[in-house]
């Protein structure tokens, strides 16, 4: 009998900084998730309201901007999509740690690599971009 393929699980990673967003999302894809990358709370709302997929969790920067700030967004999501797990992260290290916890609950049930290495990777990318901008 053919092995049953489980339905994919979907997450949203929301952060205004593309380098942080890319790295967290890529880590969570290695954990087996399908990941939407949102730059603003407006994009989070579009993904939740207009996307055809059922979103399981939202990992958002606590300083997210847009129509709603991160805390207003949390209230909105709780009200309109109560099944979505919401994690707000205050900095790169806490975001990477939270991604590690989501990974533990995710489709693969194990971490592909250490989430601390994701934080270190993000910091290297940000430093490289700052050097280029000088």
């Amino acid at each position, binding site marked *: 009998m053919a092995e049953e393929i489980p339905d994919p699980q979907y997450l949203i990673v929301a952060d205004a900084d593309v380098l942080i967003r*890319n790295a967290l999302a890529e880590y969570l894809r290695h954990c087996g998730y399908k990941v939407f990358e949102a730059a603003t709370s407006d994009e989070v709302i579009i993904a939740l309201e207009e996307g055809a997929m059922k979103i399981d969790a939202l990992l958002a920067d606590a300083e997210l901007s847009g129509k709603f700030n991160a805390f207003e967004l949390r209230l909105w999501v709780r009200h309109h999509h109560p099944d979505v797990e919401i994690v707000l992260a205050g900095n790169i290290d806490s975001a990477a740690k939270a991604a590690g916890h989501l990974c533990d609950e995710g489709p693969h049930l194990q971490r592909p690599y250490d989430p601390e290495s994701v934080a270190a990777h993000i910091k290297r990318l940000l430093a490289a*971009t700052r050097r280029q901008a000088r």
Partner: protein
Amino acid sequence: MDAQTILVVEDEILIRFILADSLRDMGYQVLEAGDGAEGFDILSSGQAVDLIVTDVRMPGEVDGLELTRRSKLLAPGRPVIVCSAHLLRSEAFHADEFLAKPYSIDALAEVIARLIGDPWQKRSQTHST
């Protein structure tokens, strides 16, 4: 060996997700940017990017044509595919290929394969800075 990396620059999150997810399913590595400035941040971060697929009209100061121009300054050999519902091919300066919107994923995949080959093809040195 790492798969070839495509930077997808598109300001509509659902279109960006579908495009990026489809390209990942084909085996490419994909980096996503929500506008031209974010795309340039990625190019400036030192991450390897083998090809760019960009929309033209996006919010902010860096539209798809300006991103294409900047990419060609950084890496003249790196191909750029410009996609637009509003431009003509002749207006997509510096672009290696132009796709008029709407286009199919198959059409995009065919153009990508023509420009950089399959996901696991060895990177050409011509893209490097």
